[in-house]
C-alpha cells in the first residue's frame, strides 16, 4: 500500500471514530426530544404530580431545581469571584497561592456523591439544617465553586497587563485598579463561569440525594428548611423506583427533556458568550 493511501485510510478511520461519538450523542438527544415532546403540555409544566408521579405535572420539581440552583449561586458567585480576583490580582505566586490552587484542583475532582456525604455530615447533621433547600444549596455551591473560580480567573487573565500598570502608575491603589480598570472588562467573562455552574448544579443528582431531595412532595416549599423535589432526582425516581416504570415512561421522557433543555440552554449560552468575549478582548 502506498503511503498516501495508508494516510487517507488512517485519517478516515480516525474521522469515523470521532463522528461515532457525535452520532451516539446525537441519537441520545434526538431520542429524548422525539419521545419527550408528546408529554410536554401546559399541565405537565405547571401542574402538581399525582399518583406518585404517574400523572399530572412536574411543577414542584422545576421550582425545586430553580431554588437549589439559585441558592447555590448566592453562595458560590461571591466566593468564586473573590477567590479568582485574589488569585489573579493579588497573589500571583507564593505558598498560600499554591495551596489554594491545590485545594481547587482537589475540589474539582471530588466525586459528587462524596460531596453528598460531606453535606450530610456537615450541613444536615452537624449544623442541624436537616434535609433542606439550605443544606442542598450549600453542598451544590461548593461543588460548582471550582468551575466558577477557574473560568473567572481566565477572564481576569485576559485583561491586558498595561491597563493595570497604567492605573497603578497614576497612583491608584490595588483595589481601585482592580475595581476601575480590570473588573469592568473581566466581569462579562466572569459571569460565563457562573452560567456553566448553573448547568452543572441543575443536573446533579447524587449530592441532593443525600441532602434535600424529597421522594414525592406535591406541594411547594415554604422555607429554606423545607425539602423539595428536584428534576434530576424526580427522573431517577420515576425511572428506577416507581412501581410501574413502563407505564410512566412518557413522564420519564418528559422530565428528561425538560432537564436537558434547561442544562443545554445554560451551557450553550456560556459557550457562545465565552467565545464572543475571547474574540472581543484581543486589544
Amino acid at each position, binding site marked *: 500500500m502506498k*503511503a498516501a493511501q*495508508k*494516510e487517507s485510510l*488512517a*485519517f478516515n478511520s*480516525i*474521522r469515523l*471514530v*470521532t463522528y461515532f*461519538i*457525535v452520532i451516539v*450523542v446525537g441519537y*441520545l438527544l434526538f*431520542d429524548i426530544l422525539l419521545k419527550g415532546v408528546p408529554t410536554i403540555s401546559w399541565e405537565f409544566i405547571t401542574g402538581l404530580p399525582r399518583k406518585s408521579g404517574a400523572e399530572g405535572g412536574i411543577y414542584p420539581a422545576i421550582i425545586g431545581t430553580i431554588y437549589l440552583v439559585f441558592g447555590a449561586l448566592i453562595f458560590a458567585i461571591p466566593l468564586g469571584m*473573590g*477567590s479568582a480576583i*485574589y488569585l489573579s490580582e*493579588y497573589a500571583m505566586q507564593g505558598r*498560600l497561592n499554591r495551596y*489554594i490552587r491545590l*485545594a*481547587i*484542583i*482537589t*475540589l*474539582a*475532582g*471530588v*466525586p*459528587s*456523591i*462524596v*460531596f*453528598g*456525604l460531606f453535606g450530610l*455530615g456537615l450541613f444536615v*447533621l*452537624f449544623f442541624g439544617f436537616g434535609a433542606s433547600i439550605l443544606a442542598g444549596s450549600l453542598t451544590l455551591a461548593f461543588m460548582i465553586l*471550582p468551575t466558577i473560580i477557574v473560568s473567572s480567573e481566565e477572564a481576569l487573565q485576559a485583561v491586558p497587563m498595561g491597563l493595570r500598570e497604567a492605573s497603578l502608575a497614576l497612583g491608584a*491603589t*490595588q*483595589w*481601585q485598579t482592580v475595581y476601575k480598570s480590570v473588573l469592568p472588562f473581566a466581569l462579562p467573562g466572569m459571569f460565563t463561569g457562573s452560567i*456553566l455552574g448553573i448547568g452543572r448544579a441543575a*443536573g*446533579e*443528582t*447524587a449530592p441532593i*440525594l443525600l441532602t434535600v431531595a424529597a421522594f414525592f412532595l406535591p406541594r411547594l416549599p415554604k422555607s429554606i428548611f423545607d425539602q423539595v423535589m428536584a428534576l*434530576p432526582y424526580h427522573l*431517577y425516581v420515576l*425511572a*428506577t423506583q416507581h412501581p410501574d416504570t413502563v407505564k410512566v*415512561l412518557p413522564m*420519564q421522557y418528559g422530565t428528561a427533556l425538560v432537564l436537558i433543555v434547561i*442544562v*443545554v440552554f445554560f*451551557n*450553550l449560552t456560556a*459557550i457562545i458568550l465565552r467565545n464572543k468575549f475571547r474574540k472581543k478582548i484581543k486589544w
Partner: protein
Amino acid sequence: MNTWQDKAIKTILVGSASTSILIVFLIFVFLGKEAFPFIWDPGFFELWQSRWIPVSFQEEVFGLLPLISGSLLVTGLATLLMIPFGVFGAIYIAEIGSETERSFLKPFIEILAGIPSVVIGFFGLVVLSPIIKTMFGLNTGLTALTGAILLALMAVPTVITVSEDAIQSVPRAYREASLALGANRLQTIFRIIVPAALPGIIAAIMLGMGRVIGETMAVLMVTGNAARMTLNPFDSVRTMTATIAAEMGEVAFGSHHYQALFWVGIFLLLMTFGLNLIAQRVLRKYQMR
C-alpha cells in the same frame, strides 16, 4: 485613598480564596468523623471481607472488597473504551479536521460534557441495556459493561479536551521539521506529535478515570447493583458510588452500616484524589496547561 479600605478588601479576598482550602479540610474531617467509630467497633479489619451484606437478621457483613472490585471492573472497562475515542477524537480535532469541523465539534463535546449523568443513566436504562441484553443473549441488560459504556461516554469530553491541549502545546517547529524531512502528516502525527504529547495524553486518561470512578447516577441505574466479586463484564456489579447513593437513604444514622458507607466515601475520595494529583503533576511538569 484610605489604605484601611484596601486592606479590608484584601482580607475579604484572601478569606474567600482560602474557603477552598477550608472545604477540602472539612470534607476530610467530616467523612472521617462519621466513619471513625467503626475502627474500634466492629473493627477496621471487618472492612476487608469479600462479602457486603449490610442488612441481615443473622450477621451483617461490611466487606468493601466486592464494592471496590465492582468499581475497578467498571472503571477498567470504561478506560479501555474511552482511550481510543478520547485520543483519536483529540487527534482528529487538533490535527486532521478542518476549521469548520473544529468549530462544530468542540462545542458539541462541551455539550456532551454538560449532559446530566442521570439523563445518561436514563438513556442507558431504556435504550442501551435492551440492546446489550439482546446482542449478547443475557438475562438482563444491567451489567458492568452497560455501565462502562455510559461512563466512557461521559469521560470522553475530559480526555479529548485535555489531550487536545497537550497536542496543541507541542511546538510548531517539531511539526515543520518532520514535514520538511519528507514525512507525511500521518507519520508526523504518530511518530512526532503523539509521542511528544504523550505525558499530557496519559494525564488526560487519568483525569477521565477519576471522573469515571466517582460517577454515581449512571452506574447506579444500569449496573444491576449486585454486590459480588467478578471480572465478567456481563455480570451485574455494585460500585462504591452506587452503594452510597442507594443505601444512605435507608440507613440509621450512626449505625455500623452508616459508618461503613462513610468508609466507602473515604476510599473513593482517596482514589480520585490520588489520580487527580498525579495527573496534575504530570501536566504541570510538562507544561501542558
